């Protein structure tokens, strides 16, 4: 082939089939684990998944470093990352949907609004429509998580980290590798700080507020939303850390650093989700 490739089509790859089989092991292991069977299948699957991602990404990085990515390929990666983030938005949308439904419909209905007066009077006459839901119809009590303590500090941390990751990007575009690395290291630090503070917040919720997954719909939406967000921050922090290593390995040039950009898109997405969480889970 004398001409430069228009589009790189990898011939075969063993990583996808390793990925799908390890996903099966991990999923089967999780289901058994949850049902109280032993946990080693789950950990095996998880380990295999990490191994697969490491191998697959290593191949792609090698292709990128060897200049096999045409401009068209770059566009494919960009678009697919964007659509992936769209799908993530809808995943969080499901939980926000549950939150809004509970706040606007199910809790008021249980307290007798709309045409539910009889249900209220007969089934749980002492139930009051409040949000956060301090007492469920079944009588489980909890205290609410305040917005202006740790959650607010965490908001500041995450917003700052979105700024620092952008500074890192600007430095990268000017080929200032050391500066970019410094800003990115700061971003990783902020991500880690966020996660540590969230652990502190959860411990506070469990031990002092009596707020847990079992404290009714308030606890359910609180922990699932913040939990999945925290999981995404964890993933994002790991991705940022990998980018930091790649900056120091000299993988990126000022025009060619899509992996970094994809990670920063992801990071901004996680940040925006948090702003919605802060507004609707903590504040109002």
């Amino acid at each position: 082939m004398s001409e430069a490739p228009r589009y790189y089509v990898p011939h075969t790859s063993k990583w996808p089939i390793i990925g799908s089989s390890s996903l099966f092991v991990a999923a089967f292991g999780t289901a058994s684990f949850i049902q109280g069977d032993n946990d080693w299948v789950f950990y095996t699957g998880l380990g295999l998944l990490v191994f697969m991602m490491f191998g697959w990404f290593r191949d792609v990085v090698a292709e990128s470093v060897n200049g096999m990515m045409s401009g068209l390929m770059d566009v494919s990666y960009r678009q697919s990352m964007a659509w992936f983030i769209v799908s993530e938005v809808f995943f969080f949308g499901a939980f926000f949907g549950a939150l809004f439904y509970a706040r606007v419909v199910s809790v008021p209905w249980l307290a007798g609004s709309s045409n539910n007066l009889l249900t209220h009077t007969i089934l749980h006459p002492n139930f009051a429509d409040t949000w956060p839901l301090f007492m469920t119809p079944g009588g489980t009590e909890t205290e609410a998580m305040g917005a202006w303590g740790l959650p607010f500090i965490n908001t500041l941390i995450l917003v700052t980290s979105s700024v620092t990751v952008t500074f890192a990007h600007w430095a990268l575009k000017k080929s200032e590798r050391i500066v970019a690395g410094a800003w990115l290291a700061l971003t990783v630090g902020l991500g880690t700080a966020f996660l540590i503070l969230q652990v502190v917040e959860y411990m506070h919720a469990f031990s002092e507020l009596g707020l847990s997954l079992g404290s009714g719909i308030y606890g359910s939406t609180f922990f699932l939303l913040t939990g999945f967000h925290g999981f995404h921050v964890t993933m994002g922090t790991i991705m940022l850390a990998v980018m930091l290593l790649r900056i120091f390995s000299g993988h990126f040039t000022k025009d060619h650093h899509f992996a970094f950009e994809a990670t920063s898109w992801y990071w901004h997405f996680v940040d925006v989700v948090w702003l919605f969480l802060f507004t609707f889970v903590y504040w109002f």
Partner: protein
Amino acid sequence: MVAHAEHIPHRSGLAAFIARWTLTTNHKEIGSLYLWFAFTMFFVGGAFAMGIRLELFMPGIQLVDPSFYNQLVTMHGLIMVFGAVMPAFVGLANWQIPLMIGAPDMALPRLNNFSFWILPFAFTMLLSSFFMEGGAPNFGWTFYAPLSTTYGPDSTDFFIFGVHMMGISSVLGSINVMVTIFNLRTPGMKLMEMPLFVWTWLITAFLLITAMPVLAGVVTMMLTDRHFGTSFFSADGGGDPLIFQHVFWFFGHPEVYIMILPGFGIASQIIPTFARKRLFGYNSMVYATVSIAFLSYIVWGHHMFAVGMPLWVEMTFMICTMLIAVPTGVKVFNWTATMWRGAMTFETPMLFAIAFVILFTIGGFSGLMLAIVPADFQYHDTYFVVAHFHYVLYPGAIFGTMAAVYYWLPKWSGHMYDERLGKIHFWTAVIAVNLTFFPMHFSGLAGMPRRIVDYSLQFADFNMVSSIGAGLLGLTQLFFLYIVIKTIRGGEPATDKVWESAEGLEWTIPSPAPLHTFETPPAWPIANVGEHQEDSV
């Protein structure tokens, strides 16, 4: 030119076979994998349907105990929706989209392999639940809480993770389709010049990317309600079982269109070819598809009219639902107008496409009846609903897929199918479909509830007819399998163009299509599709 990493390992026999199909990144091979997988699942789901119809052949409980009957109904639905119809369409997309837009392959070939190979594992997990203690999921394919939370069998957890895997597969597959269409069209091909099959798949991919994560969300809530003490679907904790239904159907209604839009695209490819006329109203077809997709997000409540929503909510959902008839009507009108005064011939793909238009329209009309809130109070949860959605899915999605297979199989395999056998398949299938599902309208209107193992004596005749039809329908599809295998193994060689007045890039390459095509982007416009849609009126 396309670069290939040319180091094919030397293997032989079984090892080579396994290596070829598990490691492939080729869109044609992966397309075939998807289609064969869907075909297999179609027979598995079909076997469950046979079990259901055998049990319902006569009133009383003959063959299976009620609990196993519920498992059959649940698995029939899940397998057909997620295992047969969706993978079949993805298989067609894999084969056809790169050929129709002049792309060298799908945009992300390794991801393509990953998307496919997740499916056999996901369905292994789902089907293994039959052998678990407490049996397979038994709460219907819609898995409403609290049937699936408080009362679900232990295997529900495996079902949940199976659904997660199918969701990952669908989202990654759709991202691939989306990027391929947006990024790899041959230079010069504008969006409004794309074949309609490509357009409908673009919209389908969008629906999948946005709907499947919501499904993942709802099964996650199920999982935490089952095991971690959350109260999403429990009024005791301030939640509501209706949260399940709302979130589920927010996924579920787009899902319905995911299972029909590619069928619309297929009909829009086939009808012009055999009517020997340009497709009537190309632009309006595209706009109608976009409108249907948009409306699919705001009509989910029509599945829940009988659960006690406020009146204004029911009215809103009713009106939005009826609005869908407008773009759908535009499509049916356009297909009919394409055939109007065309030089029509009736080869098997065309027969299936015409049956698609007519029978899908019947399903559409019963959908309109169901959309009327006061009428739905009567029809809800009866066999009328079963008749409705089988009319849109069987003659819609399945006939659409079969039409596509007859239409493109000569291109894929290099052989013409046996026209006489194809026609026999068509006529038996079309008779059997109506014999099976038409009587369900009547038993439903007369009040026969769905998902119940036994029924009252007055429904006996209708059910017997349905069961006879179903048996015939099952045999017909075995015959289809025979035709497909016969065509692949031999037969009259197909020409490159296959059909006299077929248009599009896929007919410019040899038959059978070589493993790698369009490594250099083809010229666009090609002769005879140049003014493809200049005057679409």
